[in-house]
Structures are given as structure tokens and as C-alpha cells.
């Protein structure tokens, strides 16, 4: 068992790991840039090491600095948090080469899931449902039409060499296929010098549903249900909940088992998230995140587990502390991400926190590295706090969120708190009827100056 671990991260997630380690009686080493000397994670850890200048590249992303910090402090294992080096297979390899433990999956699993095509092929072979599409290029219109009939309209025709939205056309039905097919080809030709196109089923109003899985690295794995993270702005999640308001227990059991079986078969170790688009009762694999997610606390709330503790256990080579049968959903949880950003542009607002007051009482959890007088540095992510509420059902969780937001004080910088106050006025939020486009739409119509 570990006596001392190093947390290769900052902010609330570094705190999260320090809390779990402290509760397990494990010493902690915080690493930090010169910009973070006064950061909460530095204060809370048992030891700290300054690893570089403010730039993330030269500090939190510096593999030699982090390995050296382990060497000089005698830390036996590294928890990467999320972001930074958490999904860097090369880093994991180096960690292992230095006889240190990485609190996460193997380098190989990270590598597989880090490459979209390999990940999709792997998951498909493991029985995970993917977006139907052509196997490679579609040379003729008649073949394209045949595929359209098979997978059902709408479909999207994409230039194989494409990217950034160019060379992509949607065909809503068979009649539109000819025009879409020809346009995608010619755009592909013009933009990338290659007119090969492929075809995929096009999802119009999907939800983002992700399945939390957890493996022991030795062939056992469980799932901890889903999170609905459809409320996104520019692919950044802002509001996450579990269970998903659109998912039935039967659907959860089915897709959960598929995912757990898949990661069990590859001997996956630790926490992972299998992300799907979900439309009309079907799940379509997008990618797998081989790390702890920002939104893991909603899962912890409804299952009554400590995922970071579990990560550390498994990295120590111990078995998981729960089986699938132990994992019973209790109530409903919601997380909102509070960023130091000014609405309506969501422009980052570093600055000094003149007053911070966390909401209290029943069913409220704050994960935040803020404190009175803390200076938010301008170099990193703008996430400054996660507010998680847990209630007996979705309605009471929403009521609790409203109540907790009304107690929260973050003074000195602009935050995204007003967004959540506004969202709680929306009937769609209360009915749970939203998809991955909902928030962008809503922002366009509601958050103009």
C-alpha cells in the first residue's frame, strides 16, 4: 500500500485527491508552478514541490519535473487528476519505467483509447455500439444511396481528408443524397485535394450520455450507471446529472453491462468513462476517457462511493471494494461547473477572490480550491468550483441546487453562477428535455447583452 503519493495536478481536482489520500492515511505531495505557490492544493498537501514557471507546458506538463519531484520526495505513486498528463501514454510509460505507480490505467489502454479510430475499432470488437457508417470510402452515388437506406436517414457525407466542418454535408432523405454526395466530394477535392468521402448516420438531437466504468485491472469490472452531460457550450460541459433523465433502468442495465464487459475483457484498471451519443433509445460510442472525469461526483453521490479512493486501491493492487450488486442508485445528483468567466461571452476572468462562502446544509457538496484572498492565476483553466447537490429525486435535487446557489458567494471575479440561476428558470431543465444543442440555442436567444 502506498505511503506517499504525488498529485500531478492543481486546483479542485488536486484537492479532491489529497482529501481521499488523507482519509486513507496516505501522505501527499503537491506539485505547483511558481504561479500557484499560494494555491490551496499546496497548502493542503503534506509536502509541496515547485516544479516550474507559470506556463503549464513547463510545469504541470513537464514530465521530467514531475518524475524528479517523486524522486526527491520519495512518492511511490502519481495521481494525474484530469487534463494535463492524465491521458498521456508516454508519461505513464515513463512513470512505470521509473518504478513508480500510475494511479490510472496502463499506457497501452490510454494509447488505444487516445486514438479515435483505434478506440472505435476496439470498442466495436468488444461489442460496444458505434455510429453506423461505411467501412471506408464510398466511391459511387448508388452505393451511397444504398447505405442511406440501410442505416436510415439523415446521414452525413464527410470528406475522408476533411476536418473543421469542410467537406461535410447532411442528407435528410434519399432525394437530398445526390446533391450532398456531390458537394462533399467537390469540397473535399477543392480543400484537401482528395474527393474520397465516407458516410455515417447523422444524429440530429442526441444527448451526451456517458457510462462510468471501473476495472480492477485483472479482468473484473463494474459500471456505475450513466451521467447526462448534454448541456454543453462549445463542447464544454457545464451541468451534469445522474441518473440521466431520459434513461430507463433497463437501458442502463443493458448499456452498462456492455461497457463493463468490454473493459473487463481488456483488463482495464481504474476509472474510465465510455461516452455515447444517445438518440431514439440507441447508444452510439464517441470515445472513452481513461481517467477520472470532472463530473465524477454526481456518480459518487448516487452510488455512495469514493471513486478516487477506489482508484488508489486498485493502483495498489487491491481488489475493488464493491461488486456490481453493491451498486444501487440512491436518489439524484446534479453538478454545475462554476467558472471564473464573464457572461455572455464566457471570457475568462482571473482575479482576486475577496470573499468566498460555500453553501452548507443537507445534500450539498462543494469541490473548490477557492479561499478568501485567493488570486486566480490567468494561466490555467477557468473552473474554480464544482457545486454538487444530491436529493431523493430529480425535483428535489433541482430545488436543492437552487437553494445552494442562493447561498454561494464568490466575490471579486465574474463567474458563471448567473447562468445556472437562469437555467433553473427554464421548463426544459425541469422536465429534463434537452440535448447537446439545447444550451447553445438557449445562449443565442437568452444571453445577448
Amino acid at each position, binding site marked *: 500500500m502506498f505511503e506517499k503519493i504525488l498529485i500531478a495536478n492543481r486546483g479542485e481536482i488536486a484537492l479532491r485527491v489529497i482529501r481521499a489520500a488523507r482519509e486513507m492515511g496516505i501522505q501527499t505531495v503537491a506539485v505547483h508552478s511558481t504561479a500557484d505557490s499560494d494555491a490551496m492544493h499546496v497548502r493542503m498537501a503534506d509536502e509541496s514541490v515547485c516544479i516550474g514557471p507559470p506556463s503549464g507546458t513547463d510545469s504541470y506538463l513537464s514530465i521530467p519535473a514531475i518524475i524528479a519531484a517523486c524522486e526527491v520526495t*520519495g512518492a511511490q505513486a502519481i495521481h494525474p487528476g484530469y487534463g494535463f498528463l492524465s491521458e498521456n501514454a508516454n508519461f505513464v510509460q515513463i512513470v512505470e519505467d521509473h518504478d513508480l505507480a500510475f494511479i490510472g490505467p496502463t499506457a497501452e489502454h490510454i494509447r488505444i483509447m487516445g486514438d479515435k479510430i483505434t478506440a472505435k475499432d476496439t470498442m466495436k470488437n468488444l461489442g460496444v455500439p458505434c455510429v453506423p457508417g461505411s467501412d471506408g470510402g464510398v466511391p459511387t452515388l448508388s452505393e451511397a444511396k444504398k447505405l442511406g437506406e440501410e442505416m436510415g436517414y439523415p446521414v452525413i457525407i464527410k470528406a475522408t481528408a476533411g476536418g473543421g466542418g469542410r467537406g461535410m454535408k447532411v442528407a435528410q432523405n434519399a432525394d437530398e443524397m445526390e446533391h450532398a454526395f456531390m458537394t462533399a466530394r467537390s469540397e473535399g477535392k477543392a480543400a484537401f485535394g482528395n474527393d474520397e468521402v465516407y458516410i455515417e448516420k447523422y444524429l440530429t438531437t442526441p444527448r451526451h450520455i456517458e457510462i462510468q466504468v471501473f476495472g480492477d485491472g485483472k479482468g473484473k469490472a463494474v459500471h456505475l450507471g450513466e451521467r447526462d452531460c448534454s448541456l454543453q457550450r462549445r463542447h464544454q460541459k457545464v451541468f451534469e446529472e445522474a441518473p440521466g433523465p431520459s434513461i430507463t433502468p433497463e437501458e442502463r442495465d443493458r448499456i452498462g453491462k456492455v461497457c463493463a464487459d468490454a473493459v473487463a475483457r481488456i483488463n482495464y484498471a481504474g476509472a474510465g468513462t465510455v461516452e455515447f451519443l444517445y438518440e431514439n433509445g440507441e447508444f452510439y460510442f464517441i470515445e472513452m476517457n481513461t481517467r477520472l472525469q470532472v463530473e465524477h461526483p454526481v456518480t459518487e453521490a448516487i452510488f455512495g462511493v469514493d471513486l478516487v479512493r477506489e482508484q488508489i486501491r486498485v493502483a495498489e493492487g487491491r481488489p475493488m471494494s464493491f461488486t456490481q450488486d453493491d451498486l444501487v442508485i440512491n436518489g439524484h445528483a446534479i453538478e454545475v461547473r462554476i467558472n471564473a468567466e464573464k457572461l455572455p461571452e464566457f471570457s475568462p476572468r482571473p482575479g482576486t477572490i475577496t470573499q468566498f462562502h460555500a453553501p452548507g446544509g443537507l445534500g450539498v457538496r462543494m469541490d473548490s480550491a477557492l479561499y478568501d484572498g485567493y488570486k486566480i492565476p490567468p494561466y490555467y483553466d477557468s473552473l474554480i468550483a464544482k457545486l454538487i447537490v444530491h436529493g431523493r429525486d430529480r425535483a428535489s435535487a433541482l430545488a436543492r441546487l437552487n437553494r445552494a446557489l442562493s447561498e454561494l458567494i464568490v466575490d471579486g471575479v465574474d463567474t458563471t453562477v448567473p447562468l445556472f440561476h437562469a437555467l433553473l428558470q427554464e421548463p426544459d431543465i425541469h422536465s429534463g428535455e434537452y440535448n447537446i444543442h439545447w444550451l447553445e440555442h438557449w445562449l443565442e436567444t437568452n444571453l445577448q447583452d
Partner: protein
Amino acid sequence: MPKNPHDSDVTFIKALAELLNENDLTELQVKRDYGENDSLNVRVSRKQEVAAQIAMPAAAMPAMPAPAAAAPVSGEATSPADDPANNPGAVTSPMVGTVYMQAEPGSPSFVNVGDQVSEGDTLLIVEAMKTMNHIPAPRAGTVKRILIEDGAAVEYGSPLMIIE
């Protein structure tokens, strides 16, 4: 810290301490350099309770295990003005690692106090990830002080030497 404290230094410090007490101050800093340039640098402060707590939240967190003056910290005084890192002649560590003062055990040290060094001369080695990183002198000058010991751990920015 003076290596051979004179009686007069003691008297001086004692006088400052009394001053502090008599005037209900919380901080008093003196930087003195009666060498070539004859400089004095004084800082006197009397922080109100609240301001003090807000301005120094570390001190206001007694329940929290002190961010342990972790291994890598060089063990020097912590007051900002005393910190050799603020000395204009300080050479700081560009990386985290373990310091070696000589090329290999038994060899003479790369430099000693009083040595003249040229820009680019190796001052010491910082070992990180089994790699021996030679730390060069950033400029020519005299080694005034060596702030770390052989085998010590350093963090990024730790002051190593003072070269003037």
C-alpha cells in the same frame, strides 16, 4: 546569517527587538550592506489583526498540516527579504532534482566560495530522472555564497549560489 556574529550585531538586533515591542509592531526588516555602496533597506510594519489574517492566510490555517517545508525547500529563512532567491546575484535551480557539488564522489567540488567563475562554467549538477544536468554560471563573477549542500533536493527556483 552572519557567520561570525559580533557583539555589536547582537546589540543591534536586541535594539530592534525592543523597538518592535515598544511600538507594537508586527514586522521589522532591515537590509544592510555597508560595503561599497553603503546601502540600508528598512521595512517596518504593524499589521492589523484582520489584515494580517487575510494577507497571510497560511498563518490563518493552524488546523491545516503546515505545507511541510518539504524536502526540496532549501532550509533557509522564509521571510521574503531574507530569501536568497531575491538576491540579485542568486543563481536558482532551473529544475527539480538532487544536487551534486562534484562530478563524482571523491572528486573536488566544481566551485568553492571565493572562486572566480566565467559564464558557462559548471557550478554544480542537478540530477533528475537519472540524468546529470550541469548547471552553468549565468555570468562571470565571484562565488559569494553556496546555499545548498551536496545531496540536497531542490525545487524549481530554489536558490543555489550567489555569484557577484
